[in-house]
């Protein structure tokens, strides 16, 4: 298999958009989708980013090799499934989790990691990655104390920001994904302890 080079990566970006900035944005968006695809396929949180990078590298290499691709995003999706398949076959016990029960009923979430440490990570991530307005959006949109109140509060929040309800939903979801990624990067990888060499960030 060819390895990723700067030229192949550039080919990928050019294929996404002619404008470098727009291309970078689309690259990050595609990477996020691939990451989620792996998670929804059963990949552990700790490996999802790694597999997404592998996927996109292969896409870039394929493009550089002259592979004819009509729909780049759909092509990347197909590559991601292959990458996941390879990974799950190679190290099934790690990603699928054979030690987990077949049916998880009322899981004890506290065993995942130290909640206090995760909360510290959350606070740090809120300060580091969210603006005041982003923070208001997250707090306002996900303050789901009651269903009826939620609908009204979200409608008022969208009105106050001057956006549609759907645009607000996309924005809130994007912010939550960013926030959760920051938290996951911050805390230790407890759901996949076999990956001791995974990058971890300490919390002050």
């Amino acid at each position: 298999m060819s390895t990723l080079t700067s030229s192949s990566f550039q080919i990928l970006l050019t294929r996404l958009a002619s404008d470098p900035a727009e291309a970078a944005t689309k690259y990050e968006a595609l990477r996020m989708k691939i990451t989620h695809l792996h998670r929804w396929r059963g990949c552990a949180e700790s490996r999802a980013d790694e597999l997404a990078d592998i996927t996109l590298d292969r896409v870039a290499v394929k493009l550089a090799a002259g592979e004819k691709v009509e729909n780049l995003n759909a092509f990347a999706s197909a590559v991601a499934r292959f990458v996941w398949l390879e990974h799950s076959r190679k190290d099934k016990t790690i990603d699928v989790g054979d030690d987990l029960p077949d049916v998880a009923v009322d899981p004890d979430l506290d065993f995942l990691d130290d909640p206090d440490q995760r909360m510290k990570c959350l606070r740090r991530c809120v300060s580091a990655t969210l603006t005041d307005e982003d923070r208001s959006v997250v707090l306002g949109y996900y303050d789901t104390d009651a269903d009826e109140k939620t609908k009204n509060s979200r409608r008022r929040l969208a009105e106050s920001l001057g956006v549609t309800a759907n645009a607000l939903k996309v924005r809130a979801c994007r912010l939550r994904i960013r926030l959760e990624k920051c938290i996951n990067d911050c805390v230790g990888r407890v759901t996949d302890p076999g990956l001791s060499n995974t990058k971890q960030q300490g919390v002050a």
Partner: protein
Amino acid sequence: MSETEIDKYLFNEMSEAEGEDFEDKFADDDAFFYEIAERENALVDGYLRGRLQSDNLARFERSLADLPARRDKIANAKIIHEFIADGRTGNKTITIAERTSLFSRIFSFGPKLQFASVTAILILALASTFLWTENRRLGSLDQELTASRGREADLVSKIGDESQTSSELTADLDAERRRREELEAEIARLRRTNDHPVNAAPQTTIAALVLPWVGNRGGSAAPVRPLKLDTGVTRVSIVASLPSDIATGDVASALLNGEAVAENVKTVNRGGEKSISFTVPAAKLKPERNELIIRDGNNAVVVTYIIAVTKTQ
């Protein structure tokens, strides 16, 4: 794509072909991707808040076995909820930690602000003490006012009672005064009366004349001691004795100087002697000689008395 289809994918319930088609679509459609991601957020949030329907709850929990990343997502959602709840509370109240931080910030602004803060605190303490003292004093005065009002009410009541008593005493006094005046008038009158000679004879208005029976039946008139009539005597009471053997009746009549002065007067029997009593106006008695004829119940003459009268001026 419907929510049902999205849930089917998120619960890992699609066939491989369905899943591939689904993934190709969201990979090429940002809006659809966020639709799915937000649906997963809603399922996780609903699971943590216990709002999942029983069917979705079972599917969700089953998916946790195949999707370890979702367990991290649940852990993240849990602290995000706590963070939101803290933020909601933080907007309403100030935590102790934040108060401590506030004091720390105040005392980190240098000696001038520290001095100003201490001064403000002292002023506040003095003001509080002053207000507390004034409040206590006000309470004490309030109690005194209440007691004073009670005493005032008692006094008003007593004054009312005394006024009534005073009115009664005034009436009594007036009555006593009237009685005194009457007594004084009476005394004065008595004194005026006492100014006359103590031994002066009372004014006589009636004279008594007793005519004893001394003669026989059918004889001449019995001698009678002369009657002296003083000035002021207006009537003369006459007791005329009758013969004990008056034939018929217990009544008698009298003629003075031919004029009837008593008719059918009941006779009185005292010690075997009969008599009649009657009164005649003094004016009917003539000076010097008067004839008094007594008749019985049968109009028969019983006795005749000759009365000599002397009138003084």
